[in-house]
Structures are given as C-alpha cells and as structure tokens.
C-alpha cells in the first residue's frame, strides 16, 4: 500500500476542507462556540433571571387570621413578602400572576394552638411557577419555624427535653473519593458528548467528500487518475476521521474552558454548574487521553459508516436525508448509558456505542476495568474494521459510484 498516495489525497482534502466555509463552521466554529454560548450565555441568563425573580417582592394574599394576630404579625414582618388583604377571585389572581400565593389561616387558629388542638394552615400557589414557589417557600418556612417554636414551648412547659421528640439523628457519610462522586454525576455526559460530537464532526465531511464530489462532477476526474480506489478512499477516510476527532477534542476543550469561566463567575445559585466546572478541571490528562483512546475506534466506525452511506447518495441533499436519522441511532445508546443504574456487563460491552459510553463513565470516575477495556476496545475495533472494509468495497462498486 502506498502511504504516499493516501497522504496526497489527505493533504488535498484537508486544504479543500479548510477553505470550505460550511466545513469550518460545522467542525471548528460550532464546537468552539457552542459550549460558551450554551453554558456561559444561558447559564448567566438563568442566573440573572433567577436573581431577578428573587429580588421581586411577591404579593401573598392573607385569608382569615383576624383572630390570630400573632401569626398575622409574624407574616407581615417577613422580609421581601407583601401581605395583601383578601379580595374576591384570588385563585384567578394566582393563575394570572397578579399575586404569587395565598395563605389561609383557619378560624380560631391561635386559640386552637393554645388549647393544643390541631389545625391546618393552607398555602395556595401556582405549582412550577418560579416566583410563586419562592413566595410559598418563605411562608412555609415561617410557619414551620412557628410550629417548632410552639413544640419547644410545650416541651419546656412539661419539663421535657427536646430529645423526647428526636431520640436519635440519622446521618450519612460519603466514602467514595470526590472524583468518583463527580464521575458518577457527570461522567456519563462526557462520554455522551465525545461520542455525539465525533458523529456530528464526521457528518459534514463524509457527505462533502462522497456525494458532494459526485454532485460537483469531480468523481469522474479523480477516478481517471492512476490512484487506486483503496488509496483514494483511505485518504478521504482519514480526513473524515480527523474532522470527527477534531470536533470532539475542540468541544471538550471548549466545554472545560466554558465551565471553568462559569465556575469563577457564578454564585451559589449555579452550584451544579460550578461543581461540574470544578470536576472538569480536575480531569487529569490520563482520563482525557483514556476517553479519547476509547473514542478512537468509535470515530473510525462513524467515519467509515457515514462515508459508506453518503457514497450511495447522488447529491448532497440526498446524503443529508440518509445521514440525519443516523444521529438518532447514535443518540439512543449514548443516552441509555447515562441512565442511572445502567452499568457495564459482559453483554452490554459488546453493543457498539453503548459500551464505549458506559466505559467512559467508568474512566471519568477513575475506575479502570481492564477486562472490559480490552473487550470494548477490541470489539469496537472489529466493528470499525468491518465498516472501513465496507467503505473500501463500496468505492469499488460502479453501481454505487455511478448510480443513476
């Protein structure tokens, strides 16, 4: 096999790809900009919106309570809550967001509490609506504190210790190292992102170098040159593989930078994202290299498969219609690996894409099951080799190259 010819084709395809606006956008710009926009942009927007919602002083309607002045006074003194008197149509007012909640104090509540009778204070809200939930939380917190105060007073009156009601504590303690905890939480998404981005990175060049070449009329030109079809397909394949791995690498890099920026600038409200940022920054080169090594045969599999499928198409548009459904074929197993409770088993380790996704989860958590790594790497290599073999065969079929 002449590596020189493969190299000539690869260099030419790379030159063309870097001059093609669509390839540069899909392979370089989108992965570089997607995460900053998604995480920093949307993250900051979410933080700003949540902050704004918290700053608003919600109106809460008081129903009843005329004979319970202490409770009503307590409610009125609550910080950042405006208690408004009862008006008709209060339910509609909550639905229409004119008021955020309503609190109903039963008749004779304070007297009942004094006589140790049980009553129910009801809070009416708009479930799932953020500002309504904030108002409800504040009212509920106040009422629970009031109840605790009453309990303490009753215990004190009877000379009983607080431990009468709380005979023992329940406490939980994590023994897993922090990287494993973070790995379990975020490990799935790393594998998912790398796999999905390998796919999306390979997709555009796969179409451009096959169906695109047919459409532009250059397929016949290149086939009239002395290069063997195997060298031609390998040159093209390596370019598609470069795009797949490049997209994934740029995305992971961009994701890491975005999260670290986010971790610096977000407050506690973005705790989840800050934790993710901290975790990503802790990913050592060993983990990153391991994930990419495992992603390599998957990228080969995608590149060869997408190229083979796109080769059947006569036009770029036709190729698009063949390849778009492929995204779902990849997304399902990758998502399945993220589900809680789905773990590596000998059977699952043979299912392409799912196996690598599951393994990435383990690798990110710092667990190296060498037997699974061997099975998954070799099985994916076999699938990739079959896909590449098919691509080479397809390039030798006139019925595919000159489909009319």
């Amino acid at each position, binding site marked *: 096999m002449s590596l020189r010819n493969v190299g000539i084709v690869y260099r030419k395809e790379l030159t063309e790809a870097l001059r093609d606006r669509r390839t540069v956008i899909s392979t370089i710009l989108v992965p570089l900009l997607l995460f900053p926009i998604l995480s920093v942009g949307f993250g900051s927007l979410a933080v700003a919106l949540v902050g704004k919602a918290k700053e608003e002083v919600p109106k809460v309607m008081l129903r009843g309570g005329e004979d319970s002045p202490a409770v009503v006074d307590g409610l009125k003194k609550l910080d950042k809550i405006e208690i408004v008197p009862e008006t008709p149509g209060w339910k509609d007012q909550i639905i229409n967001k004119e008021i955020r909640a309503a609190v109903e104090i039963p008749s004779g509540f304070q007297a009942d509490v004094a006589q140790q009778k049980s009553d129910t204070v009801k809070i009416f809200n708009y479930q799932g609506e953020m500002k309504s939930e904030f108002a409800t939380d504040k009212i509920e917190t106040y009422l629970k504190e009031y109840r605790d105060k009453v309990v303490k007073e009753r215990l004190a009156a009877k000379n009983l210790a607080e431990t009468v009601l709380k005979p023992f504590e329940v406490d939980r303690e994590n023994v897993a190292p922090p990287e494993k905890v973070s790995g379990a939480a975020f490990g799935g998404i790393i594998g998912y992102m790398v796999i999905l981005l390998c796919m999306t990175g390979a997709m555009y060049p796969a179409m451009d170098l096959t169906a695109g070449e047919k459409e532009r*009329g250059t397929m016949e030109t290149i086939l009239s*040159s*002395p*290069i*063997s079809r195997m060298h031609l397909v390998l040159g093209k394949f390596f370019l598609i593989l470069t795009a797949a791995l490049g997209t994934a690498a740029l995305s992971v890099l961009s994701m890491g930078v975005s999260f670290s920026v986010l971790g610096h600038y977000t407050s506690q409200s973005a705790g989840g994202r800050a934790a993710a940022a901290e975790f990503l920054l802790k990913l050592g080169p060993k983990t990153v290299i391991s994930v990419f090594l495992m992603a390599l045969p998957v990228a080969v599999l995608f590149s060869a498969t997408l190229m083979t499928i796109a080769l059947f198409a006569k036009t770029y548009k036709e190729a698009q219609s063949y390849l778009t459904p492929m995204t779902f074929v990849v997304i399902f197993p990758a998502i399945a690996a993220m589900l809680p409770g789905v773990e590596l088993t000998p059977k699952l380790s043979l299912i392409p894409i799912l196996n690598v996704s599951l393994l990435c989860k383990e690798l990110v958590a710092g667990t190296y099951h060498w037997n699974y790594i061997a099975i998954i790497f070799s099985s994916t290599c076999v699938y990739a080799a079959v896909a590449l073999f098919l691509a080479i065969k397809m390039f030798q079929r*006139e019925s595919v190259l000159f489909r009319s």
Partner: protein
Amino acid sequence: MIEARGLSKRFHDKKRGEIRAVDNVTFTCQPGKIYGLLGANGAGKTTTLRMLATILEPTDGTAIVCGHDVVEQPEKVRSKVGFLSTATALYRRLTAQEFVEYFGRLNGLDEATLKKRVDDIFNRLDMNGFRDRRCDKLSTGMMQKTSIARTLVHDPQVMIFDEPTNGLDIMTARTITAFIRECRNNGKTVIFSTHIMSEVEKLCDTIGIIQSGKLLVEGSLAQLRDKYAEHEVEEIFVKVVTPHYLAEEAN
C-alpha cells in the same frame, strides 16, 4: 495505441432488465491518429471511453492501452491516459495550479519534475494570469484550459476525450479542438466521442459509428463517403444508423 477487443458492458436495470450498453466492440486506434466515435445520445460512446480509461470495468472482452490490459492493470493504464470530458469537473476550492499539481503527484511525479512540467504547461497554455486563482472563480475557458493542463501533466501517450466540446461556447470549443489536433501532431493516440458531425469532419482520421452499443461501421471519411455514396457526414450517419434504429423500434 488502443486495441479494443470484444469490449462489452452490461448493466442491470430494475425496470428494463439487462441493458447492453456496449456490445462486443472491437477497434484499433493508432498513435498520431484521431479516432472519432460518432453516435447519438445513449449509443454507448461514454461507456466505451470510460472502459478504455478504466473508470468502468468491462463485463466481457478487454482493451489493451499502451501495452497494458484495462482489466488486469487498470492503474498502469490510467498513468498512460489523459481523460477529458465535460463531466470531469475541477476541484473548485483549489487554485488552478494546486489542481494540476494534485494530479501530477497522483501520477507519481517527483516535485522537481512536477514544477518543471507545470511551469511548461502553464506557459504553453497561457495560464499564468490565473494560476493562483481558485477554480470556482475561473471563466469557462479558463476551466477548460485547467482541465487540459490536468490531462497533460503526466505527459500521457493516449488521450481520451468524451464529448469534450459539449455545451461549450464556440471560442472555448475551438480551444479544445485545437488541443486535440496538437495531441495528434505530437504523436499521441487520440480517441474522442462526439455527436457533432462537423467535428468529425474536421478532426478524425478514422470514424467509428456506434448505435445501441454496437460498432456498426468504421473507416476513414473518404472510405465512408465511397461506401455510402454520400458526401456529408450527417447523411452517412443517418444511412448507417436508420436500419438499426427502425429494427429496434419494431422490437
């Protein structure tokens, strides 16, 4: 030299069944001569030439191009052949020079030889004004010159032209016909297909008339004029093709 020996190509079509695109075609093209393959659309010209250029593989028969068998040694055949058709487009994102160099490298030229060859061709075809311009920014004439440069970069002994002037304006078409003549004068073996009768009259040393994949008749223009007692190529063509055309229609 090109020797086609019982060259045949069958395709399978889901609706029409087996199609004999080229059926047992035998002919010889000599160095320093132009062989014109004349036929209507769908007669089998393109398929024949694609088999000679080893872009398609014959179903039966073979052809020997510069001593190499198209079935056994397709890569060696391609290294001896320059193939040009209106379907052989340019890589639009490469410059004219990069495009020609790419094909030179694929033909195994070393960098020193390639540079000398490219400079020589670009001077000869007056292409220096646009050598660094991307192919998608070239005029039709410039594109044709770049295609010609691509076919010449490895100095092939055989030139195959598949309807090279199809759809071109008259000035660009004249560039191509002048180039075909030049190839003959340089001792290359030239075969070209066309359905334009005037091109055949102007260029061809030998004419082969093809219909439904079969080579019906061949000879020099003088021989065909004598045989069919007609002066115009168009009349000769009609006389040769009509009986077969009617027979096919009847079938």
